[in-house]
């Protein structure tokens, strides 16, 4: 299987969003590859950031929680047997550190009668599951984008700009006539839905869906 590892420099998100699979990146990082580690960071940092937002951990506390999560991952990396479990591991460590910050700051922690069980089986906690599913979907979409021809990828990215760009601006930036943006957008989205990355996401999960 060919792994696309290079991201064109004009892509608007920093190095990352390749479709090299997580297991490959973990293996390369363990052999000392900083670029592989950086790609793991790009892949999972949005998950860490969204969990910190969810638990309202900000400022210096967020800096510390974030740093702790990544240092823990470095320390834990050689024990990752199943790359599929990595997002769940990162999410669990992040949430746990957020809870500790809340305890330390004297903020109430949402009481969960099954708190212990929740830490044991993080993937069953509703709040984590929600973030994990969103993160998994986002990663698959970003990976899927890399399977598209450059012009279609560029168009879709311009369409997701915030604040939204005018069609004239989009036309100028990606060289598609204004009148063709609509049809090209529809074709690009259909193609995105047919990419390997996206189909992997929508194929049934081996151990069932939401639990």
């Amino acid at each position, binding site marked *: 299987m060919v792994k696309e590892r290079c991201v064109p420099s004009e892509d608007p998100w920093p190095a990352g969003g390749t479709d090299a699979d997580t297991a490959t990146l973990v293996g390369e990082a363990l052999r000392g590859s900083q670029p592989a*580690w950086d790609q793991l*960071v790009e892949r999972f940092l949005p998950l860490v950031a969204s969990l910190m937002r969810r638990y309202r951990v900000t400022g210096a506390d967020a*800096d510390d929680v974030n740093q702790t999560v990544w240092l823990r991952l*470095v320390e834990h990396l050689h024990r990752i047997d199943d790359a599929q479990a990595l997002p769940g591991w990162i999410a669990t460590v992040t949430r746990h550190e957020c809870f500790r910050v809340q305890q330390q700051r004297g903020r109430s922690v949402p009481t969960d009668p099954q708190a212990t069980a929740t830490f044991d089986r993080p993937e069953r906690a509703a709040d984590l599951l929600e973030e994990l599913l969103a993160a998994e*979907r986002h990663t698959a979409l970003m990976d899927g984008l890399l399977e598209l021809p450059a012009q279609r990828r560029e168009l879709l990215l311009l369409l997701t700009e915030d604040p939204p760009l005018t069609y004239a601006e989009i036309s100028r930036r990606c060289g598609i006539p204004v009148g063709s943006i609509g049809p090209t957008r529809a074709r690009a989205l259909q193609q995105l839905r047919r990419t390997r990355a996206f189909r992997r996401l929508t194929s049934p999960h081996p151990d069932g869906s939401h639990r």
Partner: protein
Amino acid sequence: MSDLTPEDQGVLDDLTAATAARRDVDPRHRDAARAAFTWLTVDAELMELTYDSLDEPSAVRGSVGAQPRALAFTSRTGSLEVEVDGDRVRGHVVPARAVTVVMRNAAGEMAEADSDEDGMFVLMGTLPGPVQFQVRGDVSGTTSWVRL
């Protein structure tokens, strides 16, 4: 603009959320995450965090702040217990040995203390950011990273 099918619109909405999530990342967090990689070691004897007073339910801990933060780390050869007391970190190693304990943060700042023959030590001062402890001597190992 031509209408999209609900499926295509859903994908475009998700894509918008995905790119937003990536743009919303604090660059400082990215830098810190990347820099963490310099701490990759394969040979360290890891002393894992086995107790953290912050994990106790508030009802057990009593009023917030009344109890000092206490942590315990364990490896196959022994354990390290520490307690944060203002700007000092007191602790002891088990089994009791005279060892050197080094506390360091990811920036490489360090504090160091020798334990007495009962394994007791006091580190003067704390460090910013998450730290790890290194025990050097008959009992040895490096702890998980913790935010004090």
